[in-house]
């Protein structure tokens, strides 16, 4: 039995983690729930972060571990919210803990099972560029560091069960229902990528050397499928010229997404700098609509890329990308709206910067939580200006990208904001004895 001071945080990315840590640090009980096998979110997939070029995992990993180790945080990874009832100060939440088919208490995360598993499937963490096994740890710094068997692809051959020294494999594991009572709910479900296949003229999905920026980020990363080597996936050649295309599916007036994703100009610049650091001879072009340089240190970062590293910025939106069947080169046709005229540029690798969109699960979650979405499925703020973190339901708060496009520091600051709003509710709720814990 404990006081009804618990907070449920939905989403284990940087926003959800920050909100959890702020609340836990002040002595409040937090349940951090994450649908995938590990917390870390999108930031875990990034190689570096703009404009400071911090190694993303290096600054993130300590926070992930802190979430795991914090005495006031209960981590529920590989879990989903199923039902919510009650109101601010007193929500009852039903959570589905999906079966990992692994006894988490026994698993050491050693990964020997994965070495023996015969099934290879595309690795989601590497945006499908690399492979993982049907039993897997999504990435080496995963928290919790436990294996998961992907039910969909598992052959049930039992090899892992025989090989596991800890005896942790449990192929008969059943889903578990966890019932919680909390005072506040914070939603931080982050973003997904717009499907670049929808802009068919860019050839994504058709040409192997047309990648999305997040795929390319994995290519840049030392923990990625190529060990940090920038190569063409079609032939393994080191690219001599890489072209970035901004606003793929965003700022669109023809039926895709009209809004600006806010972070692409800067992360493209970051990826361009990293290319130059890997290989100064590689030419890098960024085809943009407007350079979005509105944050602290952003303009200066672009100046550095342009003046010190020779990254070339061209204002123009490509009309098509075609592959020369003989040379394998990609031909990008675009209108240069400053120098004027229809131009063509050859590249051996093209990076598309797609619109970032709210996660698909938001609709389901909005129904469960009884909160409103906007026309794009971002969660709607109660008051755009003065209550940007509140939703239409009292006691339910939003932060990070699911509230609207924003970068990491904005997500972090807003996550702290959600923690403050949660603390207000907890402070105003009469403290009563409420049944709490798993059922």
């Amino acid at each position: 039995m404990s006081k009804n001071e618990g907070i449920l945080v939905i989403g284990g990315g940087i926003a959800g983690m920050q909100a959890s840590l702020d609340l836990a640090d002040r002595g409040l009980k937090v349940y951090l729930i994450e649908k995938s096998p590990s917390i870390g979110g999108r930031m875990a997939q990034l190689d570096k972060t703009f404009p400071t070029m911090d190694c993303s995992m290096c600054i993130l990993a300590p926070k992930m571990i802190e979430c795991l180790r914090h005495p006031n945080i209960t981590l529920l990874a590989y879990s989903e919210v199923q039902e919510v009832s009650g109101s601010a100060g007193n929500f009852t939440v039903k959570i589905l803990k999906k079966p990992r088919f692994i006894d988490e208490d026994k698993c050491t995360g050693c990964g020997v099972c994965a070495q023996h598993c015969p099934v290879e499937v595309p690795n989601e963490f590497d945006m499908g560029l690399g492979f993982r096994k049907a039993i897997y740890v999504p990435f080496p710094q995963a928290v919790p560091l436990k294996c998961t068997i992907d039910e969909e692809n598992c052959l049930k051959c039992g090899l892992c069960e025989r090989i596991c020294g800890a005896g942790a494999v449990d192929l008969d594991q059943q889903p578990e229902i966890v019932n919680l009572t909390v005072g506040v709910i914070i939603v931080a479900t982050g973003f997904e990528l717009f499907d670049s296949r929808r802009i068919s003229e860019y050839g994504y999905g058709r040409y192997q050397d047309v990648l999305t920026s997040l795929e390319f980020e994995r290519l840049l990363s030392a923990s990625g499928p190529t060990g940090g080597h920038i190569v063409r996936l079609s032939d393994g050649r080191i690219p001599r010229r890489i072209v970035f295309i901004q606003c793929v599916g965003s700022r669109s007036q023809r039926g895709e997404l009209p809004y600006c994703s806010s972070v692409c100009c800067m992360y493209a610049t970051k990826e361009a700098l990293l290319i130059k650091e890997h290989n100064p001879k590689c030419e890098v072009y960024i085809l943009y609509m407007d350079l979005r340089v509105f944050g602290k240190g952003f303009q200066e970062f672009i100046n550095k890329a342009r003046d010190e590293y020779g990254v070339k910025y061209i204002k123009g939106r490509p009309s098509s990308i075609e592959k020369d069947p003989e040379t394998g080169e990609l031909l990008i046709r675009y209108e240069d709206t400053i120098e004027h005229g229809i131009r063509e540029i050859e590249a051996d690798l093209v990076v598309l910067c797609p619109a970032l969109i709210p996660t698909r699960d938001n609709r389901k979650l909005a129904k469960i939580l009884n909160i409103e979405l906007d026309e794009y499925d971002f969660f709607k703020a109660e008051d755009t200006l003065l209550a940007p973190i509140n939703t239409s339901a009292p006691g339910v708060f939003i932060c990070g990208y699911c509230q609207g496009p924003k970068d990491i520091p904005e997500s972090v600051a807003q996550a702290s904001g959600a923690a403050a709003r949660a603390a207000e509710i907890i402070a105003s709720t009469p403290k009563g004895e409420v049944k709490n814990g798993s059922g």
Partner: protein
Amino acid sequence: MGVDEKARIGVFICHCGTNIGGVVDVPKVVEYAKTLPNVVYAEANLYTCSSEGISKIKEGIAKYNLNRVIVASCTPRTHGPLFRTACEEAGVNKYLFEMANIRDQCSWAHMHEPEKATEKAKDLVRMAVAKARLLKPLEEPEIDVTPSALVIGGGISGMTAALCLAHQGFKVHIIEKGPELGGMLKHLYRLYPTMEDASEKLNPIANAVKSNKGIDVLTSSVVKQVKGFIGNFEVTVQRGNGENTNLNVGTIIVATGAVDFEPVGMYGYGRYDSVITQLQLEQLLKKGELKRPERVVMIQCVGAREEKGRTYCSRICCMNAIKNALLIKELYPEADVYILFRDLQTYGREYEGYYLDARRGFIEFIKYTPERPPEIVSELGGKLTVRVYDSLLGSDIEIESDLIVLSTPLVPHEEAKELSQVLKVPLGPNGFFFEAHVKLRPIDFATDGIYVCGTAHSPKDTAESVSQAFGVASRAAIPLALKHLRTEAITAVVDENLCSGCGTCVKLCPYGAIEKDDMGIARVTEVVCKGCGVCAASCPERAIAMHHFTDEQVTAQALAALGRTFV
């Protein structure tokens, strides 16, 4: 002092996936570590920072009865606290932990020379062992926290933070230098993107602040002096009547805002009455004093995004210009409005829609390049002609205009510099307050207990300032909610017998942690000291030592680096 003969050292060497292991021969370094004095255990980990690695450290401590732990991996800046806590949880004082950075200093710096990188990793491990043998346990002093906060600045950010803190049950003091609350929003007419009336949004907040019993507001007041440290700040406030008031607070929030840049001498500003700033336009709109213009030209990035000087983009000006252009059109539909821009900053979910609305509303957007900026070419009968190279058309165009509105950036307050000195917190290159870490500590200062939000941090709009204000209302509440805090154990100690009272350290200490006592001897306020070591390095009498970095410990490391036998 001296080597602890009973030191039992465990060494954990991290592969960091391939970050280290791909270059450094980690197993070789492990074998080498086992040969060093007092090392009773050594092992390699794929990722020492993983939960698996952390449990390995704890298991090692228990199994081999370790009383010193060394991790050879990455930087102590990010990972030190994690390993220290692991030691503590396993019963080893966390100051009996030492770290060797074999990633940054070996595998990264010498990635093309794996053998030499491995040798260097051995050197660093040997140095760490040399120091670990001399380490002493330290305790972190516990301090009580005054459960109240000070908010400097009574604009929308400061008021939002104050209300949120008050709702969490903490006492709040707001210090506002002006005669009343409200800040920048007092001067604004409508707020984008909702187009709501600024005073309709502002007044309920200001009234809520005034009527909240937990919030004390001091207007026409400035912070003159701040002494003390997190949990126990003593603040001297100078009131409008010249009197001083003293406040005791646990945490401090800087929400001092920013001001509009005055573009004197640019585009004829100051010379022609028809050249005004966006803020002046907004005030005319607010007062209903804007005379019917025939043709308005708005020029973006005036004094912003410069090659040198104000290099930054001021974030809010594009949306602000679009808002004011729409308001002019609403008032005078027949007026022509041009916006001359470089790159439109209509970012995010909603702002792009405003830009499209504005275009549909017959507002003309002309993209200019910084190489060929707009210029005023003639003046005739109160009308100014602006020439601009329209980069889309590829030619110069001239626009005769009876109102030119300059979009100028938000710039820091002149007083920001003084306040930064009073609080001993830094300003960034453009004069805005500089946060502890751009990505992950965006609203903290490096100095504990002091936080920043709103446009004091960098230009931002109302919704963004409010989000940050709620953010600091969490950060600043954490110490208040805890009631007690533990502070730094690695502090400076003065040897009274050696101190000559020269005062060098008093002047140099960036945290104001050293004062001279009645006897003229330097005294360190332990809880304020951050252990930076500036005082110890500059003391001419060598009277100051740093806990955890004593001369003896550092010398032992240096000798080990030179390959000398262990002393």
